[in-house]
């Protein structure tokens, strides 16, 4: 099959869709963070993604459009790092920055390139946050999503289909955080009491992967 081209416009659509989903789910994310954290994941992510959309708008309106996948993803990463703070700022920031580095100065990524970029992002998150699988963090949704994406593509699926599988894996990973005992982030302070609650970061990651499935898979 022909590779789907994930070009700059597609990435832009993805990020904007993610921003919309975060905004819609702001209260949910904050409620989840109230139960096992400090009640700010929704406002953190929403502040970061609104700033990101504003940065994307500004870049194009000022006539210096982001012409490569690397440039776009790095702009997203830098904006996230410099507007969120907290745990999610550096983690999401690193995710996008590393994706940008992996993508490089190309106008579009092929399927494998996108998958490789996402996996590089995951590696960055792990390097920064030192979380292991099962620690009840965003990694518990991101890692299975990366693995599913990679495996589906390797098995011959198209990006559309592979991202759909990845989104399902992210959802499953998110749900699987419920019975986990948190060992990283604020939720770890609760010890046993963290059990029975869904991790807010894994929840926002599932939104991110679902947004990818909804925006990236289609051939132009």
């Amino acid at each position, binding site marked *: 099959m022909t590779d789907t081209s994930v070009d700059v416009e597609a990435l832009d659509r993805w990020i904007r869709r993610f921003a919309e989903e975060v905004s819609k789910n702001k209260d949910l994310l904050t409620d989840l963070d109230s139960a*096992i954290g400090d009640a*700010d994941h*929704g406002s953190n992510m929403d502040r970061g993604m609104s700033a990101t959309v504003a940065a994307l708008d500004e870049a194009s309106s000022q006539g210096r459009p982001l012409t490569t996948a690397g440039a776009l993803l790095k702009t997203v990463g830098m904006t996230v*790092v*410099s507007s969120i703070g907290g745990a999610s700022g550096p983690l999401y920031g690193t995710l996008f920055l590393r994706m940008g580095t992996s993508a490089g100065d190309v106008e579009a990524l092929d399927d494998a390139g996108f998958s490789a970029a996402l996996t590089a992002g995951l590696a960055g998150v792990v390097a920064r946050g030192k979380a292991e699988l099962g620690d009840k963090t965003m990694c518990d949704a991101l890692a299975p999503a990366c693995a599913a994406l990679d495996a589906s593509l390797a098995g011959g699926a198209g990006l559309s289909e592979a991202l759909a599988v990845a989104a399902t894996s992210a959802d499953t990973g998110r749900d699987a955080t419920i019975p986990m005992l948190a*060992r*990283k982030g604020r939720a770890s302070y*609760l010890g046993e009491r963290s059990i029975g609650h869904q991790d807010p970061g894994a929840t926002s990651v599932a939104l991110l992967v679902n947004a990818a499935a909804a925006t990236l898979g289609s051939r132009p």
Partner: protein
Amino acid sequence: MKKLINKTENVVSEALLGMDAAHPDLRVDHEHKIIYRGDDRRPGKVGLISGGGSGHDPLHGGFVGLGMLDAACAGEVFTSPVPGQIMEATKTVDDGAGVLHIVKNYTGDVMNFEMAAEMAAEETGVNVLSVITNDDVAVQDSLYTAGRRGVGVTVLLEKIAGAAAEEGRSLAQVAEIAHRVNANGRSMGVALTSCTVPAAGKPTFDLPGGEIEMGVGIHGEPGRKRLPIASAKEIAALLVEPIVGDLDFTGGDGVIAFVNGLGGTPLMELYLMYNEVAQILKKSGIHVARSLVGPYITALDMAGCSVTLLKIGPEMLSLWDAPVRTPGLRWGV
């Protein structure tokens, strides 16, 4: 939610406007949300920076001034500042002698300060060391978790390290005493009510009428367990026991005993708690060399308190007693 605020998004920036107006001794960079010392510093002094989520006043902005911090970076409510802010503050206060970052041990704070230190070093070559406070015995420590939270000791550390820097000690020396303060301090907190994060609009947790939450931090995170409300004497025992069980505070030159209000508890109750704490320490053979009672590291409007003990020797004691002039702590000058 009833609060004296305008729009929830502007709480931090508007409070900074108020701090700026109320304290001519401070200089506030509103763009970067950084509070700086407004007075002249000793040339070549090591720079001391702290920061963190807002909502813990007077920490950190209220501890900027002679003998304490050179700058404090204010994050959103309960959200650590971003690397850009910290980098900006680091570059500004560096006077060639290097900069110490005082960071409370929360994943977000640690990562953002880390990134800032990397970026600042890369950009200007400024020498940055960090000390991470992690004194909260409510949290089980382990190599495989986020570890203990930084709470009350942060206040004492900022004072003591601030005095060391003011004396003209080198970055390595200031960092060394800072690490020593952290290693010798332990804290434990209790909440009678939750706090309400302005952007969330409702209490972070529900605490039914007759219950208290033991082992809370300073962000409205739920604690380790709920208990029925008890007397001040019993609560004091529940706070002090895990502290003295974690580190031996007997002997030597004694301790600084710090009873901290979490924001919504009046001073009268804090003094009453201090009386209970002082009695327990006396019975345990722990000598109180200095004390501090009041709301110094708070969690917005949370009712409750924390107890911090810091084991000290003559050096730390004289640094504690050294002059300080900040909105939150002031003596000797």
